[in-house]
């Protein structure tokens, strides 16, 4: 299967583990990822907060470039996905002319998790499973804007998405139900208002523990960064010691399919998942 791929800016750096595991898993599943030609930043929260015009023009350029190839495009970052979808609606909406771009809307914009949990891909995953994740106790954390608002994302299960849970079950893990699947981690406030992150993320830690989880599974690199990097700081502030590794769903597919590079991906985490995975006999 060939598909266009919009990696987004952070996958080359702060989310290198996500990038590496995506590429590895795609290769295992015979998915050929082809980068959107000459892509640019989607503008993220900064653009939609203070410059509406850039917030549409930046992602719109990416869609136009992607359409030249004529292939659907998959997006691993929740916010990039959302901004591309906003641009798609604008480009196909009644005010499209103001953008001055030619876009037919022949391609579909996919969230990576949705793409990899389509039936045929799931069937392949089950077939290639080498190391079932032996009852790894998890909660799936989907983040905000891949689901919301449904008018933009075209999702039906925006309050309670389940595809990551289904995937994790197929991989042999044990994803617990919890009410914070799509709650906010604070995203970009990690730099400008870290105190906000501390409050939001501590709540997520406590609720995940309450649900019985030993780790988080995520599909957004901003969620991963906010749950992983400040865990020690948030624990100190709260007078607690948290140990909740934050794993990408692609890393866990890689682990369950026996990919040799998993340890390299895990070495990039702040909360080292290796002790947990060893205890579970998975490494």
């Amino acid at each position, binding site marked *: 299967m060939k598909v266009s791929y919009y990696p987004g800016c952070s996958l080359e*750096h702060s989310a290198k583990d996500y990038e590496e595991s995506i590429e590895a898993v795609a290769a295992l599943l015979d998915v050929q990822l082809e980068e959107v030609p000459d892509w640019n930043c989607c503008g993220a929260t900064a653009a939609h907060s203070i410059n509406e015009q850039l917030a549409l023009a930046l992602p719109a350029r990416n869609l136009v470039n992607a359409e030249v190839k004529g292939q659907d495009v998959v997006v691993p970052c929740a916010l990039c996905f959302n901004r591309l979808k906003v641009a798609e609606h604008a480009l196909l909406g009644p005010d499209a002319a103001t953008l001055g771009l030619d876009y037919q809307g022949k391609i579909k914009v996919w969230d990576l998790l949705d793409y990899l949990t389509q039936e045929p891909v799931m069937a392949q995953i089950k077939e290639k499973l080498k190391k079932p994740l032996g009852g790894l106790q998890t909660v799936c954390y989907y983040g905000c804007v891949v689901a919301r608002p449904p008018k933009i994302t075209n999702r039906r299960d925006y309050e309670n998405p389940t595809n990551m849970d289904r995937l994790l079950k197929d991989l042999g893990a044990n994803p617990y139900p919890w009410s914070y699947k799509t709650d906010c981690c604070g995203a970009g406030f990690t730099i400008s208002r870290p105190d906000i992150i501390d409050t939001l993320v501590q709540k997520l830690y406590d609720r995940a523990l309450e649900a019985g989880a030993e780790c988080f599974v995520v599909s957004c690199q901003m969620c991963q960064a906010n749950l992983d990097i400040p865990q020690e700081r948030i624990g100190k502030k709260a007078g607690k010691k948290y140990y909740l590794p934050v794993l990408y769903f692609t890393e866990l597919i890689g682990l369950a399919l026996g990919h040799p590079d998993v340890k390299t991906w895990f070495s990039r985490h*702040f909360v080292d998942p290796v002790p947990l995975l060893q205890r579970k006999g998975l490494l």
Partner: protein
Amino acid sequence: MEGAISKELAPNFEFSDEIRKERQIAVTDCYQCAKCSAGCPLTFVMDFLPHEIIRLSGLGQEEMVLGSKTIWVCSACETCTTRCPNDIDIAGVMDFLKERSVRSGRLVSQKSVLAFHKAFLEDVRLSGGRLNESLLLGLYMLRSGEGLRKFKTGGLKEDVKLGLQMFKKGRLSVKPPQKVQVLDEIKNLFEKAKS
């Protein structure tokens, strides 16, 4: 009953008309059920609740909403917009209000948040279309004055330590991102969006 209410408190619908015109959002559709505020995860740092911002916007209390903390500490998680029974894009209103407050040259209540947004867009422009995360931290420290403050209070040490850790783990790089090849397109986008 002309004259019965003071001019300051009299409803002024020009502002809500403008929001409708600029963003196709009808704040006057709000009947104050407060579902937006009930689901909002950020209310603990807000001065007005989301449904209050919508009501004040509908009544034309521009100064109050543009000067509020709320519009800047909204994380754009879209829970309010998703759940509004009257289909009001509340997060979209927050964006409109932020942009308006910047463009009208007002003093913004949350300087660090604005400094971050500005640093981000400046970074994308300077880096040729893609974000350079390492540069973003530097630009933010300069723009917000946080760098100087942290230098004085010794807080910078923690940041440097974190940066080094990220570098060791391969999550922060000194290598700039690849520039977009058709650089003029990016330049034009930024140029057009200035006005």
